[in-house]
């Protein structure tokens, strides 16, 4: 006891000033905030920023698998500019994204509105709608691959049995048919996410608003147009941003169903990048294709960012 007390006495001036410096640091909310952010920032840098940076850097080199590359400036991009397959993949990606996202939105919204009504077997229908979402993508892609198989397609088989066609349809062998098929598969897979999210949004709309509008004389269409739709726009903006991002970067479905064929007609930028970088070993060129997706994704994000910006009615505060 005595020892402790005397040591404490001896060192008091030193510890006192140290403690006050430490106390200042640890109670300063700026520093505290910094320390709290370190782990999250570390994870983000390690797993997001670093690979992104590495990818972009690689696109400026002629790295191949097994051979460290050298800086070549914009050479990869100059190559891509004259590469018709690359431009075809850009076209395919845009077509795929626009058609599939549009269709997913319309069908998803329709299903959400339907499920929001008092249907018989409502919970059963909700469960059914979720199935495509639960099945792993690769599994559903393989199922579609069978459905659209040139020999064993169940569609061809049924149509033949009904006598509507005389020979098998070569679903994945014809460029435009193949595009339609992968888009169909993507829609099938993506609708549940949109339907369920929009349903959640619909359920936040107070039923008394519909009652008030009904008494105000609104028809069913007007209820949707003037009450449901405006109240749903914030959620629509979020869900469509995600949908566009996921569709634009889709890889699994295409790779499992067509590998980009026939004659590159279903190659998306993601699949082409993978093929060039990993299968052909031209890491630099693959990285350049992947990097070329960034401006498109940024544009999509900006678009929804402005779409997402809180509308005036959503926040209280000043009346500007």
């Amino acid at each position, binding site marked *: 006891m005595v020892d402790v007390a005397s040591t404490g006495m001896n060192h008091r001036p030193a510890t006192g000033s140290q403690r006050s410096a430490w106390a200042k640091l640890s109670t300063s909310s700026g520093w505290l905030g910094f320390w709290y952010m370190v782990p999250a920032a570390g994870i983000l840098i390690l797993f997001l920023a670093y690979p992104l940076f590495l990818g972009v850097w690689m696109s400026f080199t002629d790295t191949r698998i097994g051979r460290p590359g050298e800086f070549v400036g914009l050479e990869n991009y100059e190559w891509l500019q004259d590469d018709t397959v690359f431009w075809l993949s850009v076209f395919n990606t845009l077509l795929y994204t626009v058609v599939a996202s549009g269709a997913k939105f319309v069908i998803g919204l329709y299903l959400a509105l339907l499920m929001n009504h008092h249907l018989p077997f409502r919970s059963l229908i909700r469960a059914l709608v979720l199935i495509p979402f639960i099945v792993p993508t690769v599994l559903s892609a393989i199922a579609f691959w069978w459905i659209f198989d040139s020999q064993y397609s169940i569609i061809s088989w049924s149509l033949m049995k009904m006598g509507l066609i005389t020979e098998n349809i070569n679903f994945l062998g014809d460029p435009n048919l193949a595009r339609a098929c992968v888009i169909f598969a993507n829609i099938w897979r993506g609708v549940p996410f949109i339907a369920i999210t929009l349903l959640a949004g619909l359920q936040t709309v107070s039923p008394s608003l519909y009652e008030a509008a009904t008494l105000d004389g609104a028809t069913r269409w007007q209820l949707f147009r003037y009450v449901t739709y405006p109240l749903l726009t914030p959620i629509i903006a979020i869900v469509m941003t995600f949908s566009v991002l996921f569709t634009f970067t889709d890889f699994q479905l295409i790779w499992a169903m067509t590998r980009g064929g026939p004659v590159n007609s279903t190659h998306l930028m993601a699949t082409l990048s993978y093929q060039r970088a990993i299968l052909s070993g031209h890491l630099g060129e693959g990285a350049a294709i992947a990097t070329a997706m960034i401006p498109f994704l940024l544009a999509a994000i900006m678009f929804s960012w402005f779409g997402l910006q809180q509308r005036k*009615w959503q926040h209280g505060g000043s009346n500007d």
Partner: protein
Amino acid sequence: MASVEIRDVRKAYGSTRVIHGVDVDIADGEFVILVGPSGCGKSTLLRMIAGLENISGGEIRIGDRVVNDVPPKERDIAMVFQNYALYPHMTVADNMAFSMKLRKADKAEIESRIDRAAGILGLKPLLDRFPRQLSGGQRQRVAMGRAIVRDPQVFLFDEPLSNLDAKLRVQMRTEIKELHQRLKTTTVYVTHDQIEAMTMADKIVVMHDGIVEQIGSPLELYDRPGNRFVAGFIGSPSMNFLDGRISGDGFETDGGLRLPLATAPAGSEGKPAVYGLRPEHIALDPAGIPVTVKVIEPTGSETQVFADAAGQQVVCVFRERITAKPGETIHISANPRLIHLFDPQEGSRLTH
């Protein structure tokens, strides 16, 4: 404006019957309040008038038209909801204009009607705001404004004041009353607050468990409640009920206290009865019955005393200050002409 007739109306949700045959006549321009404890079916009845619930049996007329199968928008009624149900994405002006825009009224008419309603309700400075930017009382007024611009045959209100604080509630009460005197539109108003009912109504409909217990003007219900339920429901604090029997020209409680009666009902000698006595009709009287004070609650203007009258609780309200302490005995009496006798089983009124 129109009268509303409710004839033997019933409502069942599947096999759960919630309204068992209700008859109410509402005259043109009348302010009628449906009042009753929670779950008695007030909102259901109101929503059936509005057309938001279909009618399981009976008939509702608005004006001279049976509206059972008329869709809500053709009934020409306007409703103010408990949560106001303002469209959050529309400004105050758009909220009020919505119904007129839907029926494609011309711009000048819309504007003049909004202007008039906003003038009546003091909403002019708020027309460009969104509901989020309004206080509870202002939202309440916008909800009324939305009803007023419609210029409907009937106004329906479902507990419009229950989300407001006590002071604002009193203020809005007056405003709604004034509004009615000004517009003279037939109004059906639902509340579970009997003070609101007493102060605002031309006519009160007391409901209980899906039936109508009594219909009458506020003072009729106060002075001559038709049964024990109405007697206990109307008036605050509620009426005291003492169990006992009629004996001679008076009433003897189960604890043996003798209370006076103006006139005993004929042929009731010795029969059990319930003696109903309003707290505010009790006075201190050295010649009265002795009761033991249990709790004293002074409110300034008056004093509430909870006392024990030979085993039964009695609540008294005195205008004067009370000096007695808990545990002491005070003597009280009441004017025998202001008491009510009820049947102990059926609760029906025994006195004239």
